[in-house]
């Protein structure tokens, strides 16, 4: 048994102790117990992840032996470690902030149950990552899925919350049932071997149609959990309904399991030998990203907007995985390695800033009384620390340098530009279209989050709750500081992170990404593998070696090279950019303060000389996003109905009511047609119950028996 596994076991014990204590103590202490024990377990998980990623402590723990299938095993290999890292970061932040957040439920609901479920959920998540065979994987997944439903249904008194939780459970179950079918099919193909390492052997000689079928079932089954279109209907309904700490986990940690499934089964165990699957993944990713951000742009509820934004980010990760699969199957292993590394890096980024934003949204809900952006405003004055930390989250998610979102957004778009190295024209066209979609997504993301920050924090308060908001509690602030530090570290340290991910995902990347992306300007300044001495010399002249003796890294610049037909080098360094930015700000501040000899006169902002400013005069969030709503009208499908009441033979209108109806596009195009088809089929089949006459049923039984006997004979 290896150190990482021991640490995970220790974390599970801590969680169990926490659950027991939670059950025994009173409600008031329950939230502190949850926060403390959960935080401790998350810290242990973080340590376990770090040790697992280093790859120096391999080990397997064998559990019970099943009759036909084999032994249930637990192990934590480096890829599991890569997924455990964002899980632990996210859960640490969520547990820490729940010490404060659960206070709002204290009078209404039993926070002890919530605490127990929260801790158990983390335990189930750790179990999924340690599972090394199909059966324990599925058991742990089911556990996670079920445990995640209960916190969603916490505010069960409203009908739509119950519906959201049922939709969550139903769609996740559908996904995992599909995955179960595919996985057991794979087990059968590999000779009843349920361990992950044995599965790969049986699939070497699978022919193309079967490969496609298995791939599609697995991919769409896991894309339900990952929240990719066309399986994303549950995300925008379920995530806003849950308490903010749980929403943070649902978005920041649990969605990663969908990606885990796609990577482990579609990429590691069952790599694509054809271009098709990769293109499918890429198209699904690009469409998800676009639809996710479009819906996020028009939302006024902060949590629903963040849920849609999660769909967008998962789309970007899926697009990267798709690109990697295409590059791997067309013989471009370096580009495939780069794309896999970027997908995993974006997953880290998403976990950190999405958790940060959800915790912030929960704090806003708790202290300003509302989640509706049309009723917020001016929170910068009332909650300055929260505003500053939320700003870091907003800048990170909008891909503003030098934070973490920028690194992966830049690398994603660079990967798409490498499509010119592909041979097939169809692939190049699809890459170009997906690239356009992703570029549009990046631009819309900035608009969306500019709206959130401006409407929520700047300007004048639009409601009494916002005008009287008070600062968030200490635990929330500390949790957000932790996540903000993670965001900044991920942004400033791509040259440290990329080699780490590359080494850990060895099975996928074959360690090719580090040499391609991070040239060793610090460790070997005079040329290295893949870079000529002249190139290194040129880059040194523009300062790529600055900081060589201080910082223990390979270099501080991330490169992306074009191919032979387009030998351009694109370089980016968030670290140097951050230093330059701080330097410029400092110098400007000194110049303004020091050299300005005139007196500075403070006066109010010019507002047209108006006597009184009211918040009615400012933009509403709905108005701010109206251009997006109008331009993409056909996607949103808004229908406006108008009712009016008239008087005096219809000459005067005394009341007008306008309602705007819209169905989520995925519901309109996927769920509702499927439901209609299912109902149609059911109606057809119901004709069997023709008159309720017993003779008819007997006749049907006889006919079916006859058919079965015939089939048995002829097969």
């Amino acid at each position: 048994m290896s150190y990482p596994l021991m640490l995970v076991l220790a974390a599970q014990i801590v969680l169990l102790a926490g659950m027991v204590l939670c059950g025994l103590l009173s409600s008031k202490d329950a939230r502190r117990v949850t926060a403390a024990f959960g935080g401790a377990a998350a810290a242990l998980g973080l340590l376990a992840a770090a040790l697992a990623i280093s790859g120096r402590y391999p080990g397997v723990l064998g559990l019970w032996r099943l009759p036909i299938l084999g032994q249930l095993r637990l192990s934590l290999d480096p890829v599991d470690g890569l997924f455990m890292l964002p899980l632990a970061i996210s859960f640490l932040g969520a547990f820490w902030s729940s010490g404060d957040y659960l206070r709002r439920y204290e009078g209404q609901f039993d926070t002890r149950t919530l605490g127990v479920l929260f801790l158990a959920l983390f335990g189930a998540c750790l179990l999924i990552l340690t599972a090394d065979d199909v059966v324990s994987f599925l058991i742990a997944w089911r556990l996670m899925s079920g445990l995640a439903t209960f916190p969603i249904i916490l505010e069960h008194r409203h009908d739509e919350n119950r519906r959201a939780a049922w939709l969550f459970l139903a769609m996740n179950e559908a996904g995992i049932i599909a995955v179960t079918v595919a996985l057991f099919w794979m087990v059968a193909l590999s000779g009843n071997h349920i361990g992950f390492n044995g599965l790969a052997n049986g699939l070497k000689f699978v022919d193309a149609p079967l490969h496609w079928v298995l791939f599609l079932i697995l991919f769409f089954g896991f894309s339900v959990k990952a929240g990719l279109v066309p399986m994303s209907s549950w995300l925008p309904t379920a995530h806003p309904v849950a308490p903010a700490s749980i929403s943070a986990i649902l978005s920041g940690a649990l969605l990663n399991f969908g990606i885990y499934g796609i990577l482990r089964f579609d990429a590691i165990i069952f790599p694509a030998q054809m271009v098709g699957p990769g293109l499918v993944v890429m198209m699904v990713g690009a469409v998800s990203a676009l639809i996710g951000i479009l819906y996020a742009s028009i939302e006024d509820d902060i949590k629903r907007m963040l849920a849609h934004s999660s769909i967008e980010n998962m789309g970007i990760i899926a697009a990267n995985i798709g690109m990697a699969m295409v590059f791997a199957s067309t013989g471009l292993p370096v580009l495939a390695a780069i794309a896999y590394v970027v997908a995993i890096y974006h997953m880290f980024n998403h976990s950190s800033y999405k958790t940060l934003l959800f915790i912030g949204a929960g704090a806003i809900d708790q202290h300003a009384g509302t989640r509706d952006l049309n009723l917020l405003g001016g929170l910068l004055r009332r909650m300055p620390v929260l505003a500053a930390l939320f700003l870091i989250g907003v800048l990170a998610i909008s891909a503003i340098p030098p934070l973490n979102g920028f690194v992966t957004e830049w690398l994603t778009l660079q990967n798409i530009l490498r499509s010119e190295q592909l041979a097939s024209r169809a692939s190049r066209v699809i890459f170009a279209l997906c690239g356009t979609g992703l570029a549009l997504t990046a631009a819309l993301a900035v608009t969306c989050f500019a709206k959130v920050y401006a409407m929520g924090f700047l300007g004048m308060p639009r409601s009494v709750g916002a005008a009287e908001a008070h600062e968030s509690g200490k635990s929330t602030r500390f949790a957000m500081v932790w996540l903000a530090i993670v965001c900044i570290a991920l942004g400033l340290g791509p040259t440290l992170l990329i080699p780490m991910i590359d080494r850990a995902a060895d099975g996928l990347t074959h360690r090719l990404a580090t040499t391609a992306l991070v040239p060793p300007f610090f460790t070997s300044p005079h040329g290295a593998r893949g870079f000529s001495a002249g190139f290194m010399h040129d880059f040194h002249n523009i300062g790529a070696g600055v900081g060589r003796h201080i910082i223990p890294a390979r270099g501080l610049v991330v490169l992306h090279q074009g191919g032979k037909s387009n030998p351009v080098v694109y370089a980016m360094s968030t670290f140097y950019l951050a230093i330059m930015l701080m330097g410029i700000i400092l110098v400007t501040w000194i110049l303004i303060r020091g050299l300005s000899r005139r007196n500075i006169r403070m006066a109010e902002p010019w507002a047209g000389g108006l006597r009184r400013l009211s918040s009615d005069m400012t933009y509403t969030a709905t108005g701010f996003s109206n251009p997006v709503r109008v331009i993409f009208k056909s996607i949103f499908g808004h229908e406006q109905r108008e009712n009016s009441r008239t008087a005096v033979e219809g000459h005067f209108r005394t009341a007008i009511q306008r309602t705007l109806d819209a169905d989520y596009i995925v519901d309109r195009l996927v769920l509702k047609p499927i439901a209609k088809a299912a109902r149609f089929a059911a109606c057809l089949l119901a004709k069997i119950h023709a008159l309720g006459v017993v003779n008819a049923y007997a006749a049907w039984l006889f006919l079916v028996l006859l058919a079965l006997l015939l089939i048995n004979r002829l097969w």
Partner: protein
Amino acid sequence: MLGWFLRGLTSPVRTTAYPHSVDTSPGNTPGRPVNTLFTNADAANAVVAACPTQAISLQQLTAEVAAGRCVHCGVCSEGGMHWQKDYRWAVRVGRPGKLMSKAFKSSLHIRLVDAGSCDAVIQEIKQLSKPYYNMHRLGFFITPTPRHADVLLVTGPVTGHMRLALQKTYEAMPEPKWVVAVGGCAISGCVFGPSFVSAGGVADVLPVDVMVPGCPPPPLAILHALLLLTNREDELKPEALQEVMRGKS
């Protein structure tokens, strides 16, 4: 299309060359009464009583005109007051040491605020940015925001409703800034005067630098005021000045 083009080519330049030549367009200034020495007291008293805005006062036998109250009605000229067709009516008041630096000489940005006037002065100021007077060739521009303005041009007696807005506009202007009160109302309240709805002129609310009397002052007078403000009065040709003094117009 061709006709329009040829018509444009054959049309003369319509912009006046003022201040580099004297402007002799007919009716470009209504003129105003000047201090007149009367021979008998009755005529003087008659003129004082006839002025509808009490702009004329008697100093022994000299009828003195308060320029800031005159509305150019012409009744006093029938009673014997001497009339002058001049336009150089602007007067520098207040802040004696604060001269405009050379930087503003040909680049002055003006913010116009109508503090409750009858709109006559505004119409005259509007002519300044139209093709005939075209103050842009002299470097004077109107800005919509006080943040970019150097000069605040105020018309009207500052009604109660506009008082706060005017003060906020002045506060929003960055230093250095000047105020020009244009029109009789802006100087003294004139026909509206201090009342329960208005102050008695801009000087009651803001520190004024240049005053231009008239009801309304012709565009030439306002242009002259801006040239006075920017210390460009000497651009007027001396011969032009002579002609104007002699009353030739």
